[in-house]
């Protein structure tokens, strides 16, 4: 059970807060304490829009411990409109509706619950935009 670990990650998990380097302009996700591009420590919080496209996706049938209740799940690389590519699951979608290049938006879901009595990790997943 890790109380502080998930607590530290909440702003990125729930609000996609990353960093913007005021020296080189790089947009980084998740938040950094030092720019991985230019080494500057002049970073400001930068909230990403949560809009992106599927870069590549796979259906996972054998999961690491803790994710078995979601099998089969879609694990994707999502390219955010600000640039960063992040690893995230897709949700509320069927295989036939998942394709490279499809537009997706961020939603917050239960990613992992530590047993029946541990903390619940809420974080980002992505889903196709709701049909009008």
């Amino acid at each position, binding site marked *: 059970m890790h109380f502080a670990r998930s607590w530290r990650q*909440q*702003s990125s998990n*729930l*609000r996609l807060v990353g960093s913007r380097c005021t020296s080189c302009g790089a947009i980084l996700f998740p938040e950094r304490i030092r720019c991985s591009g230019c080494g500057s420590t002049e970073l400001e919080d930068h*909230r990403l829009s949560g809009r992106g496209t599927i870069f590549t996706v796979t259906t996972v049938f054998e999961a690491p411990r803790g994710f078995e*209740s*979601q099998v089969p799940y879609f694990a994707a690389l999502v390219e955010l409109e600000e640039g960063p590519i992040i690893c995230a*699951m897709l*949700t*509320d979608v*069927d295989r036939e509706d998942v394709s490279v290049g499809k537009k997706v938006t961020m*939603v*917050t*879901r*239960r*990613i992992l619950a530590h047993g029946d009595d541990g903390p*619940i990790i*809420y974080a980002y*997943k992505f889903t196709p935009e*709701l*049909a*009008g």
Partner: protein
Amino acid sequence: MKPTRAVGVIGYGGYIPRYRIDAAEVDRVWRGSGKKEGQSFKAVPGPDEDTTTIAIQAARNAMDMASIDPNELRAVWFGTESKPYAVKPTSTIVADAIGALPHANAADWEFACKPGTEAMQAAIGMVGSDMARYAMCGGADTAQAKPGDVLEYTTGAGGAAFILGPGQESVAVLQASTSYVTNTTDFFRREGQEYPNHGQRFTGEPAYFHHIRSSVMTLMEEIGAGPGDFTFAVFHQPNSQFPLRVAAELGFARNRVEPFVLTNLVGNTYSGAAMLGFAKALDVASPGDRILLASYGSGAGSDAFSYEVTDKIVEVRKRGVPIERYLKRTKSVDYAMYARYRGKLRRN
């Protein structure tokens, strides 16, 4: 009851999970298929959803519509009877997700199916007294039912959120609100128990009907209005019959009530039920319409509200997500998948 300063809804949003199970499928499993298929459905939360995630999406939709700085919210209050954490507020997670922390009050409310409207009254008080410019309230549930119980035919999942603010910014301005509460144990869930118990027919006349009738009649008396003065009326909806019957008893025309009874489409969403119906009414209302909202919570009580829709609704609601979109977004699951998604299969 009404605040000294005009208060109203400045934005709202709802959320309904994607999965649906047909009540006939529940019947097939427990009674050997007596029911007709396709008559009524209930929304089933996916394996990664719970009350918190439902509340977060409803809150985000409300924020998108209201288009305000989340730091101006002084309260984020959600009501539910299916808290993922028994101790630790759901509302702090919701408030964090929409960026409203830390200068906000956040708390979970509980009163069976009506904590969301209680929070609404409190938010009205907070904004109406000028303690806050904006306050968010909402109700969400992944409604529990004992497998095989009559409740299991209707318990759904969903929620809605409302942001209260100054009357001049509102899409619907409050006229008045009342509460009618007694000590009546018609439905409850004991600490540590997974499923609620209910008093069958005792949940009807002395509970649901008596309390809603009382709160609504008090409200109409207070503002000097009759059923004919309301364009739409939204009632708590544990099933599809109760709201229509109480509407008839109170003298509301069926066609002003029925479009907002979502039970056959999404089931009884407990704390979300009346609030989702209200959101649906705001989705179709025109400026000048008057809407009655009456919740019911076992234990027991009813909160009633009268709102008048303003000109702003036409433009403002374009920024939101109509409830209809979630009603249309469905994927059917059988009882086995429902049991899996709802964690009803023992794996240890």
